[in-house]
């Protein structure tokens, strides 16, 4: 069953169109990575999903319920962590966690303690004294303590150190293994690569690409390093070959993923001594869409 279902979602702020026809589906047990440059519309999408912004047009459903009308019902089963967590300066972290937990109505003291330990958070300090990372931990602890069916996370690790980032990833994988769905907007590509089953790339309010990482990789180029007995002829003439460079008696070039078969069989005629191929990283994918003039 689709946990999140977004159909042709449009959100305007006055004349400015922040989301321009988003279509998306996220299923049970799936970790979905939502990536895109600053101002692309990630947070706006999430705020519509949370029912705190009203869609201008289109449909967004979670658990089959309307995100605006049935917000309270939906929120009983989701947990949210914003990128920039702001708390009441005069309350302690522990008090805030308890408030959030009590507003949700479920209470699992043991889990709370375990998470506090895992994230190494001192709950007795006033929120005023917390760093950004520590405030984020407050939100993470109360989110993961909640036993939700869907986690919505908006750049949740932007203030965490690598150690805590690790803890966070473990928590996500644990939830995933429990069959929970996770919607993760992130800037940290290694995190997305490690955690996400599917990725959506949003730019200027439009979803420009969605699919598994493998599918997306097909959209980009593979880097090939090759050395042959005889010089390769006619490489230039092949479809999908780019940026040929000579290096140490061999060649470096890029190939469009879908042309790779043709190119390899062409090269094979010249007696391959050495062949290395490097798959495109998410960075490459990312850059392709981030540069306004990049890509197509």
């Amino acid at each position, binding site marked *: 069953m689709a946990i999140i279902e977004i159909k042709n979602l449009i959100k305007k702020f*006055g004349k400015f169109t922040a989301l321009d026809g988003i279509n998306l589906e996220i299923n049970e047990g799936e970790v979905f990575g939502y990536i895109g440059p600053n101002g692309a519309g990630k947070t706006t999408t999430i*705020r519509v999903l*949370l*029912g*705190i*912004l*009203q869609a201008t047009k289109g449909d967004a459903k979670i658990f089959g319920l309307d995100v605006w*009308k*049935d*917000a*309270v*019902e939906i*929120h*009983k089963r*989701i*947990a*949210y*962590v*914003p990128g*920039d*967590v*702001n*708390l*009441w300066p*005069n*309350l302690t972290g522990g008090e805030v966690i308890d*408030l*959030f937990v*009590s*507003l*949700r*109505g479920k209470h699992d003291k043991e889990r709370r303690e375990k998470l506090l330990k895992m994230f190494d958070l001192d709950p007795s300090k006033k929120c005023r004294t917390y760093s950004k990372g520590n405030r984020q931990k407050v*939100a993470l602890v109360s989110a993961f303590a909640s036993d939700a069916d869907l986690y*919505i996370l908006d750049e949740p690790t932007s203030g965490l150190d690598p150690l805590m980032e690790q803890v966070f990833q473990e928590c996500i994988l644990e939830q995933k293994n429990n069959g929970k769905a996770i919607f993760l907007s992130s800037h940290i590509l290694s995190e997305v690569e490690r955690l996400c089953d599917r990725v959506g790339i949003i730019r200027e309010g439009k979803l420009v690409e969605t699919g598994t990482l493998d599918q997306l990789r097909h959209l980009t180029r593979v880097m090939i390093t090759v050395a042959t007995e005889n010089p390769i002829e006619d490489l230039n003439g092949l479809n999908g070959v780019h940026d040929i460079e000579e290096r140490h008696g061999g060649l470096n070039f890029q190939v469009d993923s879908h042309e790779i078969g043709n190119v390899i069989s062409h090269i094979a005629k010249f007696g391959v001594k050495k062949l290395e191929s490097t798959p495109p990283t998410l960075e490459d994918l990312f850059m392709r869409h981030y540069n306004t003039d990049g890509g197509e």
Partner: protein
Amino acid sequence: MSGNFNNTGRLVKFMLKRELVISTAWILIIVLFSMGIAPGMAGMFDTEAREQFVSNMDNPVMIAMMGPVYGADNYTSGAMYTGMMLLWILITVGIMNVFLVSRHTRADEEKGRAEVVRSLPVGRLANLNATMITAFIINVILGLLMGLALAVTGVESMDLAGSMLYGALNCAVGLVFAAITALFCQLSSNKGGATGLSFLILGVFYMIRAVGDMQQIEILSCISPLGLALRSQAYIENIWWPVFILLLESIIIAAIAYKLNAVRDLDQGFIPARPGKKEASAFLRSNFGLAFRLLRTSLIVWLIVMFSLGASYGSIIGNIDEFVGGSPEYMQILGFDSAVAEATKENIQMYFLSFVASMMTLVCIVPLINAVMKPKNEEKEHRAEQVLARVVPRFNYIAAYTALAYAASLLLQFLTAVGIYSSAVSIAGDANPFALGTLLKACLSYLPALWVMIGVAVLLVGFIPKAAGAIWGYFGFVFIASFMGEVLGFPEWLLSVSPLHHISNVILGDDISFMPLIILTVIAAVLTAAGFIFYSKRDTQA
């Protein structure tokens, strides 16, 4: 739409917890002040003095300021208490409610705290609903305590029935302003806008009833919740219907706020936010420009406040002798010494003027301290480091704010003098007993004392920022020393700790003695310089 109010109860509990200190303080101060002043006021006037007093009150200027005079034919202590106190207490309660409501609605939204709360199973209206319920609880407690406190003061004409009505008016007007603020919190997309508009409305309501009361247009006065509340005539006729109308008004206004809240996006308002400038002007790009920009609004507001305060004091100078002439206590507060001066009309006027000038000077210290404390608050909010991490030397950073404080001191004193003079002259005409020049000289001669206050503040911010709040303690001391120092029998050395003590009284005919002014200026300069140096040397602190 299911569950718009879900979880209201828990939020109310949470808000009450957050209000434990601050609202308790508001309530206690308002109630204890109201309670404490009643016996004193009753004791100060006998029946005859009250009759004298009320005949002075019955003129358009006083009515515009204080509200209509009720119960003049049998002017009891209770009638006098309501006449003198109720309007001002209601304004205070209104202010309390503006802060209370905006604190729990727009402030939480603006600071991004509402977002996580709303992602929980919390109804769309739960926060506003909880805020209004919290405001209801707090105002009811205030009203009840006020009623009971006034009833037990034992002033003969202040019975339980009148006191409960007095308390109920506090509660009802409080709720009207809570609802008005709730409404503006929906309309404006930020806290500053919402509170600003609410205070503006408070001021407009005061003016509307001033015009209505003065021109005797009842319907106009009743449009204003403040004017309507005065129609209850607590301790005189004890009329209850205004309370119910006020409650009805608050319900209607709150209902509109709920309606708007239900359909709007988080962080958005209905009054479109003015888009900011894309680029900083050349002026704002400088360190000084930034300081000016950050202080600008509050300084302008203070300039207006000082001018209007001055003007309102000026407006009563013309017949001040009628108000205070019969009361030795008031005369003593003015520092009038019958051994030195005769109680002629003009003498009393000049004593009053000198009292007003020193009082206004003290008030003027507040914005000056605020300006110097600004860099410290910027530090606390971690904004200072962003400026300092760029090319601005620490020395220049604090110097910009300090320079503005010095400049403001001059402007504030100047406008105060002009405010007092222009309204005094417009009412008294040729009979006005003093020249603008004298008043200006008096107000400006206080400047070196103000500079010492600035200097102390700079030193604290530079040297012990954690304890910089102590400047308010010093301010409190200076305040007490100025008005009660001699009555309380402060020794000379203690009095001279206050810089204001060294300023000669130009209004009462003393010559300006320049030596103290020079010494104060030098002290101010040394303190300021020391503060700069310490500030340049120390770490940025949170």
